[in-house]
């Protein structure tokens, strides 16, 4: 930088005279919660056959929690759907099934069986990009078509990835389920246009305005359960493709790879083969949040899928990836 030093001159947290939300004022987190609940209720009121995509990750956890709050004490008036690549972590499957049973939600698990048959059930048959295309994007399209869902509620956030900064909260998909960034409906106030023709559908993102820190803060404040993989534990790992992969039923050390035990955790959860762990000492929720506050690396860095090519996420979205 030329004349300015990059150090910030704002007061630190401790000295800042925070503007306390006064009477009849909601904290930012409560405002985000209210906005998300409004969105979820709007989907249920206007769409014929909505579904909530549940990926077992922390954002999904928050989304599900919000959905429950939106209709409490009644049950969630839509099913959950997990689009499963079959290559997720065992902890995730356990967590998913236990939670669904606990809250009595209808859970649909969809896999692209045809592709799995054709290409193989062994994860080694799959590259990340084919997996993302066939077992996520195509699988999702299959599932939505098969069940004729007209709206899929998803937990994506705008701050996750650059191409998402322009995503609408109610994102319109044409009858081939494609996203056209140039042909999205203007979205004003909190009035959402959910009108569809046959075959068209909506992806709805109630967490659009949440940041990663908001998610953790809310998980903590509301005691929302998360998969233990988010917490640091000593885990056996190998280093592969620039990532730290946990040894498991799927990941076995290859020729020349050395298994090490490392204190590590996951910042995002995905398929075992394309989700790397990061070294961390954060073995409690509190420490995870503190670590997040300090974080200087954006969370998707450890997901190979985004790094393929510049602008790759956008290409996927055009094709129907959520």
């Amino acid at each position, binding site marked *: *930088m*030329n004349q300015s030093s990059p150090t910030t*001159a*704002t*007061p630190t*947290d401790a*000295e800042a005279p925070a*503007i306390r*939300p006064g009477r*009849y*004022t909601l*904290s*930012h*987190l*409560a*405002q*985000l*919660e*209210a906005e998300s*609940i*409004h969105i979820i*209720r*709007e989907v249920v*009121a206007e769409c014929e056959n909505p579904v909530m995509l549940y990926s077992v990750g922390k954002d999904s956890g928050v989304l599900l929690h*919000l959905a429950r*709050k*939106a209709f*409490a004490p*009644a049950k969630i008036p839509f099913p959950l759907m997990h689009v499963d690549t079959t290559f997720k972590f065992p902890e995730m499957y356990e967590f998913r099934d236990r939670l669904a049973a606990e809250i009595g939600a209808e859970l649909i698990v969809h896999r692209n069986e045809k592709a799995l048959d054709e290409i193989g059930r062994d994860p080694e048959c799959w590259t990340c990009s084919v997996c993302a295309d066939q077992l996520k994007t195509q699988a999702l399209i299959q599932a939505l078509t098969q069940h004729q869902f007209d709206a899929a509620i998803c937990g994506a956030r*705008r701050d996750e990835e*650059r191409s998402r*900064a*322009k995503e609408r909260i109610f994102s319109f998909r044409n009858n081939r389920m494609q996203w056209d*960034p*140039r042909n*999205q*409906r*203007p979205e*004003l*106030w*909190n*009035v959402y246009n959910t*009108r569809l023709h046959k075959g068209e559908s909506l992806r709805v993102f109630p967490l659009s*305005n949440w*940041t990663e820190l908001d998610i953790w*803060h809310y998980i*903590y*404040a*509301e*005691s929302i359960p998360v998969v233990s993989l988010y917490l640091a534990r000593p885990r056996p790992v190998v280093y592969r493709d620039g990532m730290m992969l946990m040894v498991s039923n799927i990941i076995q050390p290859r020729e020349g790879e050395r298994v090490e035990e490392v204190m590590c955790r996951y910042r995002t959860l995905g398929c075992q083969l394309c989700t790397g762990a990061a070294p961390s000492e954060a073995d*409690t929720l*509190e420490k995870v949040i503190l670590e997040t*506050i300090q974080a*200087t*690396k*954006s969370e998707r*860095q450890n997901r190979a899928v985004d790094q393929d090519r*510049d602008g790759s996420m*956008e*290409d996927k979205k055009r094709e129907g990836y959520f």
Partner: protein
Amino acid sequence: MKATSNTTTTATDAATAELQDFLARQERKDLLRFVTAGSVDDGKSTLIGRLLFESQGIFEDQLAAIRKASGRRGSAHADLDLSLVTDGLKAEREQGITIDVAYRYFTTPRRKFIIADTPGHEQYTRNMATGASMANLMVILIDAANGVTTQSRRHAFIGALLGIPHIVVVVNKMDLVDYDPDVFARIREEFADFAAKLEIRDLTFIPVSSLYGDNVVRHSQKMPWYGGTTLLNHLETVHIASDRNLIDLRLPVQYVTRLDDKTRGLLGTIASGVIRPGDEVTILPGGHTGRVQRVLGPGGEELAQGYPPQAVTVVLEQDVDVSRGNLLVRSNNVPPVESRFDAMVVWMSEGLLETGRPYYIKHATQIVPGEVSAVRYRIDVNTLHRQAVPTLGLNEIGRCAIHLHRPIALDPYTRNRQTGSFILIDRVTHNTVGAGILLDRKPSEAAPSPERWTSQPKSEHVHRHTSRITPEQRTERLGHNPGTLWLTGLCGSGKSTLAYALEERLFQAGHACAVLDGENLRLGLNKDLDFSGEGRSENIRRAAQVAQTLNEAGLIAICAFIAPHRLDREHARDIVGPDRFFEVHTDAPIDLCRQRDPHGLYELAESGEVQFFPGVTAPYERPEAPALHLDTEGATVEQCVDRLVELLRQKGILPA
């Protein structure tokens, strides 16, 4: 939501203590949503990049990517091109432009921020309106070297229209003008002059250099003459709590659910006001009343009160019929419920607005079919002049008359952004084609007022008397039949000139006639009337009554009135009697009318000094099937009079 500090009271470990301390501070933060507007190259991206960078809203790997890209683009000024931070979609990256609203997030120790970053060019109005709709504050960028531009004015207008309470004008690139206080002062003065015509509650000016960071986050050493605060400090401290409306309870019902066999829960987000158990409420549009028994927060906890923007569940004491789309209001504070009203409409579709085409209107949580019945005028967003137009195109803003198939509760936008706004949805394409803003003033101002025509005499003890002279006797004496020639047309189309020329011709031929001229009547009989829709309806009603009396007396009435509303002319025909009433359209292009205009009325109308001026700021509805269409541009007065006389002969008023 639970308070964080209560979740783990037995916390012993240091991490927990530290975290709780941190989260407690987080919880005290509120949320400011702001929208940024600037023309291309004013430095908007650089400014946002600087805000994010200096408040650490950029992740390290993003920074690395930006460093890489900065080199590629060959940015002139700095080794780190901060404008790349806000760079979004691929197509835009390739073209080096931004075309859609992008949302960014950052936080400081005092507040959380959501930025709606709107591009300054292509699609500007639509995008700005979108970004502005949720904003508490707007940042308008002005390039110090260029000064106030047409675009800056446009941005201020849209900000004011969308009801943004706080506007900050950031005069950027002060480094290019040597940090000259006079440049800043000139821009401030010019902008403030323009802004005075708009409704802006709070207007602030800050001189900055986004490139070097002066007055963005840190005070500038280069501008000691500037005594104000930095942009970030302003964003952190501007008072927004009192922007909310806590007075008028408005709760649009989103969804109705059964809490148990007997109880129904009304789910909705509070748009304004405060709701408490025991409140007497009215459900609109039906008007049923009830009493609030319980207010439940998200998750079902009992609340002593709910306030905006909480998402709540309300249980009423009685089982009142309520459904989605209804509006819950306090019974002593009920807004009007109407199906015809005026609104400012921002048109957002490539296709033109079509009056009479069926649209859906989504207002709060309800969808109502309806149509735009007229475009009253378009606002030139650069000059604020009003222009008469038949329709609105993409990115145009105008005042429209809306006609819904069902009435809705109407709040002015300035009091309530949620219940004072709506979107227009095309019923064929299902696209969102327009955004509407309900106006403060009485909705029917410029529209004709049918009540004036249909109302009954105030007392029933008035009776009609009849003349002892028959129409035949009069015709025999006067040598013609009675009739009314009704000349209608824009101001300056030649009505009065022709009326008096015709009068002279008839007089010389020995006929008995009288002229009723709009302006003359307004000097006497109608001097109590204004030019609102209602004033015009009454003006025409009285003129028609007089014409009818003249006809009764056997005279030919020559009426010269703009009479812009078809409806009013129809009513006049009914009063005079269809077989005696002949509508003549004196027609000339509006530019010619403007040239002929001796009193400068067109100019006064454009500047807003004369209101509801047909053809300029109010519609002129052309006659659909006049008895005679007179093109006064290509004909002399004599020729026109000949044709009027010919018409009277044809219709049997004058002998053949």
